[in-house]
């Protein structure tokens, strides 16, 4: 009975569709897709001249074919859709025909004409495209779902194209300047002047020693990562353990709130506090630790503007919440059976934590640590006010620096000679920074996937 009904239905549909089914079905799809493509070409190329006529023709043809098809098959057809279509096409025509100066206004003043007409054509072509998909798949609920895909996919494709454009440009600008010599050597810039007597006259001769390189920035990044992990790993794990295992009352809530708030408040506040700490510690016994020192080319000891120790303390404010939440997540995924079995045998609470809970949460902790290292390599706002070119050596007591500090310096500096010397290598430095952060992120993703697979199985 049901089969008969279905076959009847199918026959009715094919009757409605007519004989040359496939060809007629594909016409509106092809034309509307071409309309979308032409509209995006106008946007990309930003010229109406080449694409205006074909895009208008394809959009209107697609719309007309869709209308004819909907009329022939006597599907329900939306009045709003028709209004949108013809308004869009008509206004695109009008914008193309309009003179450049219109009632004393230059119509290219705010938006480019091609942008407006491309957006209008997009507004026409996208609904007609999705409606032609809807009709081709038989106007069923499944077809309705399928017809949503253009609207979902288009913004995603645009966003991914923006990311692709950025990374492509970075590769184009960065790869040609790649050289081992620049990577491995430090940036040095000493200048001094002496007075000599020539023919009874004093003459000032200035010397300038320069070495192009980004070596100390890379080493500074790795030193920062190491020190930040040293500080934030015990604190982050301690927070995670305390709020899940030892205390579940108001204390745990307060600590959790404080830990999350460290990331919620702006990084700018943390950077400002770092600067104030360095400034107020000047001329005290803490100065060599907090503000740092270096010996210049003449062997004279100078105070720096903020040491690696200060920088790592203030960056670890951003990394502690990451490790704490990772630890918490790992402990929450632990099945209750294991802890109960351990406690039931007679092991103490602390023994259970040391031998059951922490080993279970270890992959999560390592994942959090790797993500924290990536964050450290990229974080700049916390240390931008206290760091600089640490050109007199890298150790915990010298001026803090990292690759992102170098890139920011090249961006904002007014020192033209610095820009001239180090400027070409800023894109290479950005590539190295991306390699470090993406490597750490991908490692954490792989680790998370791998360990979660092996542990969940048990």
């Amino acid at each position, binding site marked *: 009975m049901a089969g008969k009904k279905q076959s009847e239905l199918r026959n009715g549909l094919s009757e409605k569709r007519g004989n040359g089914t496939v060809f007629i079905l594909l016409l509106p799809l092809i034309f509307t897709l071409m309309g979308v493509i032409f509209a995006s070409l106008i*946007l990309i190329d*930003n010229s109406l001249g080449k694409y205006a006529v074909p895009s208008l023709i394809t959009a209107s043809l697609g719309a007309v074919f869709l209308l004819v098809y909907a009329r022939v098959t006597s599907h329900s057809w939306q009045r709003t859709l028709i209004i949108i279509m013809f308004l869009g096409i008509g206004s695109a025509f009008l914008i193309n025909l309009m003179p*450049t*100066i219109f009632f004393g206004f*230059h119509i*290219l003043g*705010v*938006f*480019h004409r091609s*942008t407006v007409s491309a957006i209008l054509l997009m507004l026409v072509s996208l609904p007609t495209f999705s409606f032609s998909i809807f009709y081709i798949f038989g106007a069923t*609920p499944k077809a309705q*779902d399928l017809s*949503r895909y253009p609207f979902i*996919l288009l*913004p*995603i494709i645009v*966003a991914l194209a923006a*990311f692709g*454009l*950025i990374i492509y*440009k*970075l590769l184009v600008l960065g790869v040609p300047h790649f050289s081992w010599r620049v990577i491995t050597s430090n940036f040095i810039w000493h200048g001094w002047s002496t007075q000599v007597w020539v023919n009874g006259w004093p003459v000032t001769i200035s010397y300038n020693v320069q070495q192009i390189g980004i070596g100390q920035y890379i080493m500074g990044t790795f030193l920062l990562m190491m020190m930040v992990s040293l500080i934030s790993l015990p*604190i982050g794990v301690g*927070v995670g353990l305390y709020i899940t*295992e*030892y205390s579940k009352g108001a204390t745990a809530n307060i*600590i959790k709130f*404080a830990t999350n*708030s460290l990331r*919620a*408040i*702006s*990084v*700018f*506040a943390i950077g*400002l506090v770092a*600067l*104030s700490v360095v*400034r107020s510690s000047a001329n005290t016994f803490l100065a060599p630790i907090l503000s740092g020192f270096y010996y210049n080319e003449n062997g004279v000891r100078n105070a720096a503007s903020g040491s690696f120790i200060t920088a790592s303390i203030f960056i670890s*404010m951003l990394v502690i*919440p990451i490790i704490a939440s990772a630890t918490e997540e790992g402990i929450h995924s632990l099945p209750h059976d294991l802890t109960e079995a351990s406690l039931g045998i007679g092991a103490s609470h602390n023994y259970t934590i040391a031998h059951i809970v922490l080993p279970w949460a270890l992959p999560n902790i390592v994942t959090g640590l790797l993500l924290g290292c990536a964050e450290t390599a*990229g*974080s*700049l*706002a916390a240390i*931008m*006010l206290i760091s600089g070119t640490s050109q007199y050596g890298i150790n915990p007591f010298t001026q803090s620096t990292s690759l*992102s500090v170098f890139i*920011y*310096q090249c*961006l*904002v*500096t007014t020192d033209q000679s610095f820009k001239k010397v180090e400027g070409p290598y800023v*894109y290479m430095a*950005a590539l190295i*920074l*991306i390699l470090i952060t*993406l490597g750490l*992120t991908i490692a954490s*993703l792989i680790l998370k996937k791998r360990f979660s697979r092996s542990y969940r199985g048990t």
Partner: protein
Amino acid sequence: MTTKLNFKPLKLLTPPSPRRLIKSWPKVLCFILAIIPLIMLCFVIVNLVVHTGPVFRQPSYDVNHDGIINNKDYVGLKGIFSTKISTALTGNKGQYGLIPAIWGTILLVIVAMGIATPVALLMAIFSSEFTLGFLGRGMRTLLGVLSGIPPIIYALMWIVIFTAIIAPNFRPDGLNPPAGMTWWFSPPPNSTLIGGIMLSLLIIPFLAPLFDDAIKNVPNSFKEASLGLGATRWYTLINVTLPAAFSGLLSGLRLGVLKAMGDVIIVTATIAVETNIPNPFFDILRPIAPLTATGVGLAGGFSQSMIDPLGYAVANVAAILLVIMAFAIIILETLLQRKFKKRFSHDGR
């Protein structure tokens, strides 16, 4: 009737026995480690408050980097909440109104989240509901990788997006104005729009996995009930899944807003520091610096020697305003969560 009073000794006042203390050393150690973030937060806030001192002090004199004594006017709350700001480092009568900066933050958050939220939501829908098998999984991995790109990269590459989108479409510079006419609109390269676009590129890979998780956490029984009644997948998504995932979406949105508000580097590079309110005030094609960029400008950027004490204090006020705004958003989100919690719960209660 006699009531028997049962006095319990106060736990705080009685010292724990040394044996018990020794036994619970891991707990004590964890507690000491766990209160460090709390101490850090308190230290940050107290330090910011303490360093706002010069703002509220009576007319003072200070020496700028050239050794010239400048007469600084009293700023006070009235000076902070005024609409005028001018660079403090050079002028001898600085104006430190933070209203433009607050408006800039609001405008920037609106632009950035207006771009980032729909795209991230569509990405989450694509990878969780409208999955094309491997494509959904690939999208999730790609977003995980893209979230590792640090903000300084976007700050460095903003000119690429500018030349691709803003310059040809919104700035017809290549076209010369006709004789006797000037462009009645010619925005500078720095603008809130380009800042918002770069910020949304930073936020999208961060926001999409959160939305994805929120949509995935909706119990399958909800969707199955809707699909079983004959609703389409799109109808189910709009009317069942997204309302049920509202709490997760809202907490993701809160994190995105906080990230957009607190960003320093991208806005400093793309939008100028210390600017007045544009005319009209919602003009996103002109620069209007948010609180963070204004604060960086007042704190002197890299050049520490040029810090103007009064400007530095105003920067602290800006940071405090940011902290207050962040906490206000957290409280607002909590209230909204509480309001909408009863609508959908896993037990159906």
